[in-house]
């Protein structure tokens, strides 16, 4: 009796094991067949976890823009865009697995990789270099990759954390009529690579401008911030620069309200400045400011996307249509815009066919999104102008500051550029150190076309 009960369990297990083994061996196999004439783009997305709400908007916007280009123009130069999503859960290990899995799906190896996550970016930097796939870090990632001489395949487009931080300091300086001497600025940050990177640059800014900088870390996921905000209030900080991400953003605003710190003295980074952050905080968020590399609202391009994809036969990616036009959705559209523009620029040089990694890399180094080009793309005002080159993989360095008025984001500044004179030498030194440690000889930008 005892043994027979065990035996049926064993039988069931054997059957299950054989089934699992059969399916697993069949599972991840390259399938080039149907994508012969399509530009396949890997989408490493995250839609679950503490950063999930941001991801839903960003990747919804990205996929919607690619869909929009397919519908409106039949693809890029007649080559349709195709894509596949893979859930990374914002974790480096899953990001690596998703990258490797999607790499096998097409000879384009994914066209370009947008991890939208600093830890996954760090994990993929060496792999994308070895596989010759460009990795694009729009507004996040490893700062010293701006120097394309040491990082030919990594592109921190639009701007980087230090440029954003120094631009915020510039904005604060403008607010204080150009004089920040004697002021106290607290830097409240998520204790991760994302949060720590601007610290050296902010310390340099503090020396130059004469303000006192206090750095206060928050352990992820940061839902409990009472102690940090008490510390801020006790130190009588004049301004708080907030570098949060995910659910901690709303917690920060509520905690600030509890200790009575005025929200209009808080400026967040763009990962702490979206509707998913302010709406859950309710009226605690009123007055809170944040940096933005793309604006919110239904600008002409976004309105056109909504009309095309969410009209009679909705094929859009967003389940919740109210998020269209939100900061994260627009950010996704900007990511899609950059991807498509790079493919266009590559096709202009190499012909109207499916582009491979080396061609896309060349295009990413020769992007020129001027005012005229943005106007042609119907994206004026949506993102800043951007021009990349071999030595400058960033291209822009500009942000706008916006303020939450209780129902929507209102712009309170025009495009502000970060402190390039301060940031560039520091990151160049970091790139040189990296090159030394890995034994990389820098490219000579003057020699390349």
């Amino acid at each position, binding site marked *: 009796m005892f043994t027979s009960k065990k035996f049926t369990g064993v039988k069931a*297990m054997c059957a299950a094991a054989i089934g699992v083994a059969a399916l697993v061996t069949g599972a991840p196999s390259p399938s080039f067949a149907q994508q012969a004439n399509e530009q396949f783009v890997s989408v490493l997305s995250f839609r679950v976890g503490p950063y999930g709400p941001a991801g839903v908007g960003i990747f919804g916007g990205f996929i919607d823009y690619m869909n929009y280009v397919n519908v409106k123009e039949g693809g890029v130069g007649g080559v349709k865009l195709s894509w596949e999503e893979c859930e990374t859960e914002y974790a480096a290990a899953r990001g690596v*697995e998703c990258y490797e899995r999607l790499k096998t799906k097409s000879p384009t190896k994914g066209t370009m990789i947008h991890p939208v996550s600093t830890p996954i970016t760090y994990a993929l930097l060496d792999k994308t270099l070895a596989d010759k796939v460009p990795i694009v870090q729009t507004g996040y990632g490893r700062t010293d990759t701006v120097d394309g001489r040491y990082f030919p395949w990594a592109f921190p487009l639009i701007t980087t954390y230090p440029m954003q931080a120094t631009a915020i300091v510039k904005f604060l300086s403008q607010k204080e009529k150009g004089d920040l001497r004697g002021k106290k600025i607290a830097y409240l940050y998520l204790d991760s690579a994302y949060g720590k990177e601007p*610290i050296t640059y902010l310390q340099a800014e503090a020396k130059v401008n004469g303000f006192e900088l206090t750095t206060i870390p928050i352990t992820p996921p940061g839902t409990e911030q009472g102690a940090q905000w008490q510390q801020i209030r006790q130190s009588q900080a004049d301004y708080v620069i907030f570098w949060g991400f995910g659910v901690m953003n709303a917690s920060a605003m509520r905690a600030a309200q509890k200790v009575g710190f005025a929200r209009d003295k808080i400026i967040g980074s763009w990962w702490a400045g979206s509707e998913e952050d302010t709406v859950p905080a309710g009226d605690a968020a009123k007055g809170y400011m944040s940096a933005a590399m793309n604006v919110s609202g239904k600008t002409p391009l976004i309105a056109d996307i909504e009309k095309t994809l969410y009209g009679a036969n909705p094929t859009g990616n967003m389940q919740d249509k109210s998020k269209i036009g939100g900061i994260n959705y627009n950010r996704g559209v900007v990511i899609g815009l950059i991807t498509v523009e790079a493919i266009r620029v590559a096709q202009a040089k190499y012909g109207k066919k499916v582009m491979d990694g080396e061609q896309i890399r060349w295009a990413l180094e020769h992007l020129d999104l001027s005012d005229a080009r943005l106007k042609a793309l119907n994206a004026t005002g949506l993102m800043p102008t951007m021009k990349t080159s071999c030595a400058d993989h960033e291209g822009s360095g500009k942000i706008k500051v916006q303020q939450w008025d209780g129902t929507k984001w209102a712009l309170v500044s025009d495009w502000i550029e970060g402190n390039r004179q301060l940031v560039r030498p520091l990151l160049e030194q970091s790139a040189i150190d990296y090159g030394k440690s890995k034994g990389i000889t820098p490219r000579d930008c003057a020699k390349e076309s």
Partner: protein
Amino acid sequence: MLYREAGQFKTSYAADQQLLPIRQDRIAFFTLLAVVFVIVPLFVSDYWFSALLIPILIFSLAAIGLNILTGYAGQLSLGSAAFMAVGAFSAYNIVLRMPWLPQIVSFLLAGVCAALVGIAFGLPSVRIKGFYLAVATLAAQFFVVWALQKFPWFTNNSSSGVISAQGVTFFGFPIDSPVRNYVFVLCIVTVLALCAKNMARSNTGRQWMAVRDMDVAAEVIGIPLMRTKLQAFAISSFYCGVAGALYAYCYIGTVEPEAFSLDMSFRVLFMIIVGGMGTIMGAFIGATFFTVLPIFLSILIPGIASLFNFNFDKASLTYIEFMIFGALIIFFLIVEPHGLARLWQIGKEKLRIWPFPH
């Protein structure tokens, strides 16, 4: 019928005490070794190495470490990821500051550093047991991650706190492709797993199991409790440390404290619970289960959804995968509370007398 054991006589004590006494087992095992060392590197794609095989091997090593501590010695520990972090950062600092040492020696020294930290955090085990000890090891988890972030010396004063691991070389031979990483990790894991299996079968292992089963009785018959427990902590942390160094160097390529979070400690613990506590085989099975199954579900569930035209959005599909994964863990533990390794053991017993049922 498969196991023809008639005629297999042992004529020496050594033959009787060997790891694989049955000839068919020896043949099967050496065939398996030939497959994983020779056939797999030649025929398998890069995806399998980077995404499946290397993490399975690394987590098997960490799970063996935790199995020694929790399965054999009975000391519940929630700090395995902390010891992995110590191993990873020690390896980084040793390779950075003493580049003349062969890297394999650096990894082993990193394991030794992790062992020293393990002894320090294992000291409470002399006085407390069970869940209370789990809390003390939880303190190790938080303290180590905090210390690695607080003192910039560990990250070589990097501004972001994330450092790129230096390339791996084996006595001048660069280990840079997925295949080479796989073979390198496989060699280390095979040797260490063999050592662990032998330790578990030896006097050391018997002392651990005595402490686990009834430590008062163990003390009465003369087993030194403090020494045995700290030895278990040291050896377990050594294994976790080497696993952490391999995780940083051969798998992810970056070393950062956030990667070795409490979540990873729990994962390693669940691997040995589902795989089978107190067995070396259980570590491998548990690591395979936890690595392969989520990926398999993320391929299978969207496939089924599109086959039956279920219109779930991507986030819902991921949540469904989580639910099914959790349900499978519960199912396997109900069917066999001693873990999948016990199922394997029962299967082998049945195979030995097959086709007879008893």
